[in-house]
């Protein structure tokens, strides 16, 4: 698997490179600014891009914009966005193209190396990896998700974080069958059209973020 990294702070750029390399993930290129990201992505066509939100030259949300632009250019290009703070607003913007392969994590999560590498792989495979922080911020809100039972909201939150049915079942101490029942209920309540399961999961997460 090959990745392109965009991170302006050398310390973190090297840390990320080292961790990914240690897990046999090839770092095709590590850029340190926003404008260099898109050309690097087009040149290497990596399996996933790991991008810091705040990059030079503007030090605003340069990385996020570059990631969204790259996904417009290369539809469905998996992008894992890292930041020192998370905003549900940014998560929603990342997901608006309704394709999977999106992750949005606090940089803190990288220190749980195994889980981080797992998230990188999951996003590369077209899944999602929303930070628990984003999820918990949204759980506290009311909205269209009011129709869901607390348990269903919990399951939806776990889906947003990117867990598989089996993983959710293990986490909530129920059977996998119970989880798929919950998920079907969620799809029905959110009026998700029947389609392949992966895509519906993304849409459900998006509904969750839009709530």
């Amino acid at each position, binding site marked *: 698997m090959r990745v392109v990294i965009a991170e302006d*702070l050398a*310390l973190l750029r090297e*840390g*990320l490179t080292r*961790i990914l390399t*240690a897990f046999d993930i090839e770092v095709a290129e590590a850029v340190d600014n926003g404008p260099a990201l898109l050309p690097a992505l087009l040149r290497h066509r990596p399996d996933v891009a790991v991008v810091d939100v705040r990059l030079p030259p503007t030090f605003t949300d340069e990385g996020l914009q570059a990631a969204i632009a790259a996904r417009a250019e290369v539809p469905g290009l998996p992008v894992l966005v890292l930041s*020192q703070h998370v905003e549900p607003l940014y998560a929603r913007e990342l997901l608006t193209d309704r394709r999977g392969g999106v992750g949005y994590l606090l940089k*803190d999560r*990288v*220190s749980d190396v195994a889980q981080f590498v797992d998230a990188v792989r999951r996003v590369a495979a077209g899944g999602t990896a929303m930070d628990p922080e984003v999820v918990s911020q949204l759980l506290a809100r009311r909205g269209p998700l009011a129709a869901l039972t607390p348990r269903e909201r919990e399951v939806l939150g776990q889906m947003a974080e990117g867990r598989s049915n089996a993983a959710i079942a293990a986490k909530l101490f129920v059977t996998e069958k119970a989880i798929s029942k919950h998920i079907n209920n969620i799809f029905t309540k959110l009026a998700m059209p029947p389609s392949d399961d992966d895509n519906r999961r993304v849409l459900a997460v998006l509904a969750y973020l839009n709530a």
Partner: protein
Amino acid sequence: METRAWVRDGLRAVADGVIAVGLALTNFPLLVLWIVALVLTPVAGIGLVALPFVTWLVRGRADLARRLAARAGVAIARPYAPRPENARLGGWRRYRWILTDPATWRDLAWLLPGGLAGLVLGVLSLALPLYGIEGITLLPLWLSLGLDSYGYGIYWPIQTLGEGMMSLPQGVLILAAGVAVAPALRWVDAQFTRLFLAPTRAADLRLRVAHLTETRADTVDAQAAELRRIERDLHDGAQARLVSLGMTIGLAEELLERDPAAVRKLLAEAREASGSALVELRHLVRGIHPPVLAERGLDGAVRALALNLPLPVGVEVDLPGRPETPVESAAYFAVAEALTNVVRHSGAQTAAVSIRYADGALAMVVLDDGRGGADPGAGTGLRGMGRRLAAFDGTMTLSSPPGGPTVVTMELPCALSSPKTSHSSVRA
């Protein structure tokens, strides 16, 4: 020495008197011009352009009178309302701005009496010394003209050679009196000018409001920039280091069984990273509010700062108490900025800081023996310093002739809390 100062002041006053006479002669023509410009307003709107122009001349003239008054020791502020933003020349707004400003009318009221006073007082201050000089230089003149044809002082006409010789001491006395009296005449003229040209109470308040509006905006800007800087420093500094620390430890955890040697290296790295994170936090905290300032006040903080600089800095602080925290902080950072400039730009061998409290204000002086030539317009540092102080009605003046020395004088009006009587407390 004292005599020389007295003579110098007198001669300068006489010279100012001459200037005042010259300027006074323009007053009447200016008044006429202004009235003509006003009357011409209905004629194809000429006045819309002419009146602002003539008013500009009148105000320039009034400003010169204020400058002369300042030289005589009477400070007179400009009373004019600030120009509205979209008041273009030739526009109605500009015209209205001029006509509705009471200061315009006060200027006009001043033109005639002011001109007259300037003329009379100026001529007077010149006439006495001239007459004195005449007395001193009269002798040859009088000899060539012959007796009985001329007089001087108390002898009129001069009849004997002895009386003629008396013109010399009389002349010296009159010249001395003239020079001595000239500053007083200038002062009277200045007071008369102030009567008309100083801001009224309302204008004073308006100026004050304008000043406050400006300094408030500056303060808010400075504060926002400061917060942004702190956010940046945290984001790129300590926060990033902690993330990196987490990464290193996480990786070490993963490698624990596979590669213990690498783990040892990673852990050493982690320890180092935690150290640098702390150093960065400490620097940041010092930039926000130095702990030593909180603990020891301005005196201790400036001394501590001086010790950290690469050149010897003499510190002299004489404060009977502590100012309010925000004032103290502003004072500290102003001194710190001044010292930073010394280190960066002056090439000085030594510097000195003096801080004392007098007349309800902190007076801070930072001087160095460097190359001088500092330009307050050049760097943002000096300007920022001025702004920091302006928020508390403080002022900063800079004297930095080429070749040095550079002296930064800062004043910060404030009250001091009564000094803490004792730190020791009675404990069982």
